[in-house]
């Protein structure tokens, strides 16, 4: 198996692109990544998209996007794993290069959520749950997250400590050119925002946005940023089926597998991007990655330890809450941000001396999770 290098990155600012199509967004960011990589051609395209079938009435996006970037004829696949589509697509792309099946792979995530009404977004998010068992009851993803959140507060933390996950993400997004909400948000503002589903405040939820992020992968050459570990794990789809609804085993298993592949433990991780679509999920992501003990994630994200000069910087460009969460693109944004850090291109967000970075991307209520570990190459 060959080592794989992150050769090119393309990011679009997450915002509302009212007058642009998913093809437009996909093409612009993909061409940026190809230019950044300096490659002459692409062997394979992976399209990461969660909900174009619902939001744009569009299927067959692999062909559509290959056409959009002017490469009809190329091998292309679409990957869908709920909001973990990006992380899973990256994993598939890594396998393609590592196996030797492809030499130059483009993996681009795209999602355009502003084309539809908010209640359809809610439906889309609920579609990541089992329709015949959970979603049909009418429960929303926010509602499910609220149950977990409440349990966490009962067991471990104060509400304000969990809420700090959002405050920190916003703080880290300041100055980030591709972030949707690059401004600070006080804990008071977050805690006084209306309840979406008690105890989750509105300002503890990632918003709706359009975005696209792209990465070009090639065989490693001991320079730049390499993929050290990449893994996927799944869990019972419904939290009701799990022995402990808060355990988030998919995150733990994916992290264990990715760390093992990288030959490291959580202690070696220098920075992390976690899936904070809700503050509670960000906190559980931190714990699932082994960056904090169970029940101590909220306390950790309340400290300066998660800032860029801290012990374990988390969500250094704002995470899902402040950078934005364009579903199928989110996982690619996360990996790209880790890569920017490791190659020293993070600007004001730069974490000095980082060698290993991890991106954790969940789908459903972490019924699937992709964990990708990158490392700075020796040269």
């Amino acid at each position: 198996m060959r080592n794989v290098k992150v050769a090119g990155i393309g990011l679009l600012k997450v915002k509302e692109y009212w007058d642009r199509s998913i093809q437009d967004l996909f093409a612009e960011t993909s061409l940026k990544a190809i230019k950044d990589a300096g490659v002459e051609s692409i062997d394979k395209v992976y399209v990461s998209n969660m909900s174009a079938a619902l939001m744009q009435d569009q299927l067959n996006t692999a062909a559509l996007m290959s056409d959009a970037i002017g490469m009809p004829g190329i091998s292309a696949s679409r990957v869908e794993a709920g909001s973990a589509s990006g992380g899973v697509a990256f994993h598939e792309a890594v396998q393609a290069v590592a196996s030797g099946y492809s030499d130059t792979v483009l993996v681009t995530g795209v999602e355009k959520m502003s084309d539809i009404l908010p209640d359809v977004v809610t439906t889309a998010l609920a579609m990541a749950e089992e329709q015949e068992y959970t979603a049909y009851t009418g429960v929303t993803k926010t509602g499910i997250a609220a149950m977990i959140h409440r349990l966490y507060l009962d067991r471990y933390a104060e509400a304000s400590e969990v809420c700090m996950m959002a405050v920190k993400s916003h703080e880290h997004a300041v100055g980030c050119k591709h972030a949707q909400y690059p401004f600070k948000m006080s804990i008071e503002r977050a805690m006084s925002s209306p309840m979406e589903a008690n105890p989750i405040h509105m300002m503890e939820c990632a918003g709706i946005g359009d975005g696209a992020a792209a990465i070009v992968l090639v065989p490693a050459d001991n320079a730049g940023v390499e993929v050290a570990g990449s893994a996927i794990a799944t869990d019972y789809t419904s939290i009701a089926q799990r022995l402990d609804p808060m355990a988030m085993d998919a995150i733990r298993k994916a992290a264990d597998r990715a760390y093992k592949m990288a030959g490291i433990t959580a202690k070696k991780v220098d920075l992390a991007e976690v899936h904070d679509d809700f503050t509670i999920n960000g906190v559980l992501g931190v714990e699932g990655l082994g960056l904090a003990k169970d029940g101590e994630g909220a306390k950790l994200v309340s400290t300066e330890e998660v800032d860029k000069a801290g012990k374990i910087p988390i969500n250094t460009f704002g995470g899902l809450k402040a950078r934005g969460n364009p579903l199928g693109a989110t996982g690619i944004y996360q990996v790209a941000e880790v890569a920017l850090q490791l190659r020293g291109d993070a600007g004001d967000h730069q974490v000095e001396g980082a060698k290993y970075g991890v991106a954790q991307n969940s789908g459903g209520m972490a019924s699937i999770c992709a964990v990708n570990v990158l490392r700075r190459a020796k040269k």
Partner: protein
Amino acid sequence: MKTIRQVGLVGYGAYVPMYRLEASEINRMWGGFGAPVEEKTVVAVDEDTITIAVEAAKQAVYRAKITPSEIGAVFVGTESKPYAVKPSGTIVAEAIGATPNVSTADFEFACKAGTEAMQACIGLVGSGMYKYAMAIGADTAQGKPHDALEYTAACGGAAFIFGERSAETIAYLEASHSFVTDTPDFWRRSKEMYPMHGNRFTGAPAYFKHITSAGKMLLEETGYKPEDFKWAVFHQPNTKFPINASRMLGFTMDQIKPGLVAPKIGNTYAGSTPVGLAATLDIAEPRDKIFVVSYGSGSGSDAFIFTVQDAILDKREGPKLSSFIDRKKYVDYATYLKHRGQIVQ
């Protein structure tokens, strides 16, 4: 756009019904937390768009000190016509004594129907076809129960009489500009009781795009800068939008404050920008310049620049809009539904 012969306002009037529904009352009913405006106007059981239009029109005629039969056109801009087929304008024209030698029509362009009627009047008077022409923007807007628009859908209206510019005009028109695209952000199909809307789509690509485009184009055409104006009025579907639109165009809170009446009366739809202009004329001084931009879903904006003249000091007798706003009686949600005809015997 400028007319061949200069046109101005010779009279204006505005009216809002006395009943109010507070945002907190809607929240009490539906368990929400919104407050896009503090409270909104509610019609009495015997009020509708036509009665509101008549109230405003009569005041405009009274202030203008003209003979109603000299009014050559009466146009009512509204999206809540009491009759689907039968003009509101005929009733208003008859009520103010402008019939029978008069042209009337009802205009529909969502919230900018009133300013669209103003553009038509400006053209007709500017061409010399009529001595006076009256444009009215009035509505009794429909807000579906538990919809976001229920907080703001309100009622009220204002009337403006246009004539050739002279020492008798209270404010003359310097220029206007209309900006329209096919942007379906809000609509009501025939025979449906309530409008539909595209949530966030009503913001950036609809309201803000059209208001700022029309506003910028009129500023470019005339060479004026925001600081050249004493006052500014923007369509006010809620409290936040006009404040943000004014900032985007470079206007200040002080400039829009007198015309920003939505927090206290809600969104009077086709009456919204006209009522804001009337509130501004109520306090304006001679030589003040007023920048006005409406917005109507569908979508489009009309932008106007008026300069106030000395005659205004003698032509704003009678109750000001603020007296109608201050004269209020709160109703509960059930009474509101009854007044709106949403519960019937």
